[in-house]
């Protein structure tokens, strides 16, 4: 949960994204897993502070929603920063399992088994 944020954040969210409100590509869903590329690609630019935080947090795979919660930033803002990082080769992203409502018995059974173990 968010703590008190009554004073507002120091930096308005969309200043982190150069004023853009849409990512250049729409690859990121709430449950897309993001993983930092380690070691970083050669000739990688020095990341901005918020980007550096993302790279640290995603040392282990983390989904977009969790990342946004940990950064205390809107998902939409995080997606824009992620698309920059993806294009710079600093992260990899893994899309969620494609759900085909009629056929994916195997996946459903895995979910069922997992819930049964709770």
């Amino acid at each position: 949960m968010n703590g008190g944020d009554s004073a507002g954040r120091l930096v308005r969210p969309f200043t982190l994204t150069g004023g853009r409100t849409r990512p250049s590509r729409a690859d990121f869903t709430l449950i897309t897993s993001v993983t930092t590329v380690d070691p970083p690609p050669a000739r990688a630019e020095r990341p901005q502070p918020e980007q550096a935080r993302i790279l640290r947090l995603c040392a282990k795979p983390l989904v977009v929603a969790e990342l946004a919660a940990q950064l205390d930033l809107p998902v939409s803002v995080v997606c824009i920063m992620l698309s920059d990082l993806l294009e710079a080769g600093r992260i990899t992203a893994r899309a969620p399992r494609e759900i085909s409502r009629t056929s994916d018995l195997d996946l459903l059974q895995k979910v069922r088994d997992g819930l049964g173990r709770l």
Partner: protein
Amino acid sequence: MAGSSPVVEGTSAPDTVKILIAGGFGVGKTTMVGSVSEIVPLRTEEPLTSAGLGVDDLGGIPEKHATTVALDFGRITLSQELVLYLFGTPGQQRFWFMWNDLAIGALGAVVLVDVRRPESSFAAIDFFERRGIPFVVGVNGFHGEHPYAPEEIREALALPENAHVLLCDARDRDSCRDVLIALIDQLIARSAQSNGTGRPAGPA
């Protein structure tokens, strides 16, 4: 968010799936998420501007929640390869537009109903019915008490015969897990059925 192709292959991240926890304002969605989640429910807040309202007019509005939609969610690691996320949908009807994005790629939904005011979950039921998204109805008893039988709730909500209605307690982990299992069982039944006929099953 559109775009269905995997972005980059070759990471060791587990598969992720999601289920929506929907229902009217204050029916216990976040409570349910918290009951089964392995983490304290997390929250992200979306500014309404990003959802297309278009005006970044925050000046003079002291309360942050007046201009953002909060999204609470939890996580259940089902295995090393599979992680389930539960997303509580924003309860206020005027935030319905967020549900569209949320619903994309969801396995299905649990519509929570407050036994004292079932009508507050009408909009959620309608949303999933119209889009053909599978759902079960979880009747959250006040203090865990259930004065009505599932049949009576079904009638009160004008639900079809085959809709699953379960009595539950959003505060209780096992109870919430059973509701999720009922949803998955319904999906498995539909999937098996449609594989048999080669055609999608009818609405749940």
